[in-house]
């Protein structure tokens, strides 16, 4: 009965189309295919083809033809050891160490802030965001300020000059400082992701465990931690990937002791115009991450459930810390002040110093903020706020960061929905995998491909190149790994029954999303918004290729200043960026219920 089969097929298709996993998942997959997979495929394909330039490396190069030369060169030639194996080992060690440290640091902080009655929560959770606001090279520099030894010359670090202790090389450069600096910078991801998960967790689950006589540590280890596992794992993968792909810190702290990572080798290849080599290197990173994500999917598993937001609500109770309440709070505050406020203040102070490093009152000036042209300073460069393009750049930055962070948060949640609810489904898993790639495609490569892809109208996509839109697109795409992970982790906590209850009341998916899922994940959304906003405000690599003079941003302005060596002006812009982010953060907390310390449902 072919006709019956046809009817069946049609109905099946129809009911699939009605299933949000499919009707969101399929378009999402198509979109991701275009904006991520397609560039990656192109990236892969370049690694198997001779390019004209390859004649430089191999005389046998035959442009346009298939070759395994590049893979061979990276993986199995006499140069492989220093070019690939040593750096990848370093990358992995740094990646794992950073992840582990960040998880420890972030989870503990998150637990204290969300699940206990520790005082000063708001302030502490605010302070935790600050290191992420600072560009990571500032943190590296701050490290050197303390631990620099005579090896790299110049002014010695505080330890050496004041305490006359010569920090050994391993403490001053290489693995240890790289790991610690990235940890301080990125653990906010763990804090926010895991914090959102923790605060949504039904406290009865903890209570039930403590009634069996379990110590707090056991409760943490056996109940709390595994329950927020999706968030922990997401945070782990994010941090791991961020660490292995980070360039600034290892370049500054690793180079003096020849501590190379894949990211630094990759950057070097790119600068030497050995694009294919760079592509091969980034593909190896992608492969590693794919494996990590696969393991993650296995751990999160089919059956295991992480639902902690159920339809039987329980009052959220906070663990009483008792007498240790204040000591804990003070310790955290001090720690965060050292990690966050000190570097920030140093930076701020610098913007008021006419000459760097001269600590006298007369050296203080507002010149770099809004001074006029003075030929004696910076060859007549005006204060940053007086720069003609400052306002334009500010406007552009705000537009890009504002719009893209809102879009990214929503898109992340929507795609996260497919990933979370389609865990058992090939579609969900594929979307999960693909959405993670952007972190590993070097920003420059992605941007370069986007010029080709968006310079001309393709299908229904208009020519976006040269407009702000493309900057928004690429920012959203680049942040997808984070937003999708955050979204899916948050949604995994929510019992599907809550959605079903709305469905049965006749609510369409959109209504369900808007009225049920969005509010239930609002904390996670707020974190996503905030971090994407910060990321977008700081982003440089990605947009530098895509900006045109009309789309100048604050970061391209700092690029200009930095290249000219106008340190104070650079810092002024940085302070402006930080100021904006802090304002946005405070506004979000005030009006967007983006409170990172409170329990769900506004039960305050």
């Amino acid at each position, binding site marked *: 009965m072919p006709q*019956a089969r046809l*009817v*069946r*097929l*049609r*109905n*099946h298709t*129809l*009911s699939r189309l*009605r299933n949000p996993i499919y009707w969101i998942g399929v378009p999402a997959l198509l979109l991701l295919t275009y904006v991520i997979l397609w560039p990656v495929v192109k990236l892969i394909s370049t690694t198997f083809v001779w390019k004209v330039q390859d004649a430089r490396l191999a005389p046998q190069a035959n442009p346009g033809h298939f070759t395994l030369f590049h893979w061979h060169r990276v993986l199995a030639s006499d140069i492989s050891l220093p070019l690939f194996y040593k750096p990848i080992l370093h990358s992995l060690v740094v990646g794992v160490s950073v992840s582990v440290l960040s998880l420890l640091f972030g989870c503990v902080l998150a637990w204290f802030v969300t699940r206990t009655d520790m005082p000063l929560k708001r302030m502490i959770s605010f302070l935790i965001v600050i290191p992420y606001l600072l560009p990571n090279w500032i943190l590296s520099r701050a490290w050197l300020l303390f631990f620099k030894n005579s090896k790299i010359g110049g002014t010695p670090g505080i330890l050496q000059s004041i305490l006359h202790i010569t920090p050994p090389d391993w403490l001053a450069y290489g693995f240890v400082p790289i790991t610690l600096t990235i940890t301080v910078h990125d653990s906010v991801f763990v804090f926010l992701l895991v914090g959102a998960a923790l605060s949504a967790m039904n406290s009865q689950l903890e209570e039930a465990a403590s009634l069996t006589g379990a110590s707090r540590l056991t409760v943490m280890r056996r109940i709390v931690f595994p329950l927020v596992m999706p968030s922990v794992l997401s945070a782990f993968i994010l941090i791991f990937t961020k660490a292995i792909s980070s360039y600034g810190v290892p370049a500054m702290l690793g180079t003096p002791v020849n501590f190379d990572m894949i990211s630094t080798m990759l950057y070097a290849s790119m600068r030497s115009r050995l694009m294919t080599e760079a592509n091969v290197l980034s593909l190896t990173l992608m492969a590693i991450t794919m494996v990590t994500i696969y393991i993650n999917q296995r751990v999160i598993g089919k*059956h295991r459930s992480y639902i902690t*937001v*159920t*339809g*039987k*609500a*329980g*009052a*959220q109770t906070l663990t009483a810390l008792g007498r240790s309440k204040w000591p804990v709070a003070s310790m955290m505050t001090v720690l965060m002040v050292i990690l966050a406020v000190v570097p920030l203040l140093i930076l701020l102070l610098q913007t008021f110093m006419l000459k760097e490093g001269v600590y006298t009152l007369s050296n203080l000036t507002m010149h770099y903020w809004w001074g006029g042209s003075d030929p004696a300073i910076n060859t007549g460069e005006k204060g940053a706020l007086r720069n003609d393009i400052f306002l334009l750049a500010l406007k552009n930055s705000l537009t890009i960061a504002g719009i893209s962070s809102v879009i990214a948060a929503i898109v992340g949640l929507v795609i996260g929905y497919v990933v979370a609810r389609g865990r058992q489904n090939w579609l969900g898993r594929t979307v999960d995998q693909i959405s993670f790639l952007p972190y590993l495609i070097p920003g420059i490569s992605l941007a370069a491909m986007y010029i080709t892809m968006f310079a001309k109208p393709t299908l229904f996509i208009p020519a976006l190149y040269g407009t702000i839109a493309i900057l928004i697109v690429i920012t959203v795409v680049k942040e997808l790994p984070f937003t999708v992970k955050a979204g899916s982790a948050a949604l995994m906590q929510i*019992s599907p*029954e*809550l959605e*079903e*209850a*709305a*469905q*049965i*009341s*006749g*609510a*369409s998916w959109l*209504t369900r999303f808007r*009225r*049920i899922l969005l*509010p*239930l994940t*609002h904390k996670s959304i707020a974190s996503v918004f905030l971090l994407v906003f910060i990321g977008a405000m700081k982003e440089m690599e990605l947009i530098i290729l895509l900006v045109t003079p009309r789309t100048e941003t604050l970061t391209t302005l700092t690029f200009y200043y930095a290249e000219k060596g106008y340190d104070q002006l650079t810092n002024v812009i940085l302070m402006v960026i930080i100021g904006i982010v802090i304002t946005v953060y405070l506004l979000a907390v005030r009006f967007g219920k983006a409170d990172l310390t409170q*329990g*769900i*449902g*506004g*039960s305050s």
Partner: protein
Amino acid sequence: MNAIEITNINVSIHGKHVLKGIDLTIAKGEFMTFLGPSGCGKTTLLRTIAGLQSADEGTLRIGNKEAVNSATGHYLEASKRGVNLVFQSYALWPHMTVYENVAFGLQVQKLPKDQTQARVRVALANMRISELETRYPGQLSGGQQQRVAIARAIVTEPEILLLDEPLSNLDAKLRIEMRAELKRLHHELKTTIIYVTHDQHEAMTLSTQVAVFFGGKVVQVDKPRQLYHRPRTLEVAEFIGNAGLHLNYIEGTIVGSEGGQRLETSLGFLEVDGEVGETGREIILTLKPEDIRLSEMMGPDSLAVHIEAVFPSGSETLVQTRAGELSLMIRVMGDMEVEVGSQLYAKPRMDRINLYDKMTGRLLEVPIQFIQPREELHHENRFSHSR
């Protein structure tokens, strides 16, 4: 018209075959109760009807719409079935106040604001939770949450209302009030109600039909009294009735007699109308504790019994008695002041004795008449037969 027609529905969850060929028809305006042991698939069937669980096989019609048809792959979305469900686990939205939870369905239906407000208020008042309007579910007690869940489902006045143990966390008094409210809905709005409960009293008093489930299958669908008095299998008989464990089982065998067949049991010989089954086959008689009357006076058809134990429980008392090797549990109303060891007279109601095939457990539909005590077994303790 039928509100729901279920034909050969099969459902597997994660490879576990949960519903095994369910056939069930529920007429419009019916108050149907699902009874069955924990884990037998009641919730799953409700979810299938509501459209929250997909069926592997079978068809489901709701009203005159086809909702599920595995053959054609047809599937009607949950939101279009005109069904509402009170979840066993409430499924309250923790981020909405009680008012918002209840108003949600009406807002989705785009009801004007004042009407929404009015209807929500009425529903809350009916559930006795008016004063909790502005609270969040996390700030409510278990029973209060459960009532919010009911209010949320009834406020939209669905054509079909599914309730999954909706009163399990309410006290007796509230439960009676809530039942009255459900009855009102059922009468006034002609809502078809499917009700899952473990409270058999509730099942008996509320429903017009009861479906009994075992292990993913429907084993009996009947009017409550019929079900109570004539359980179709031993399994159902054992399950039904609060008595559960106290049901009196009397073993026996089919023996031949002049008129046809009779049953040899420890009660005595029972005469039956017509053929029961193969001679020699083992059977079981069941007799509920409340179908035996205990009195101080020897009356017609009564049997002398010794009191072995007394279990008072407030409004009624269970008395364990013995007549030779036969042990009988008897239920009496109120307090029974009787001494253990004393002798009383028990009078079973013949028409309430059910006869089952021991092997298959099926009810044998044969009226029973008492004939004669087995003199050789019970010398002193016998029924004095005077008919």
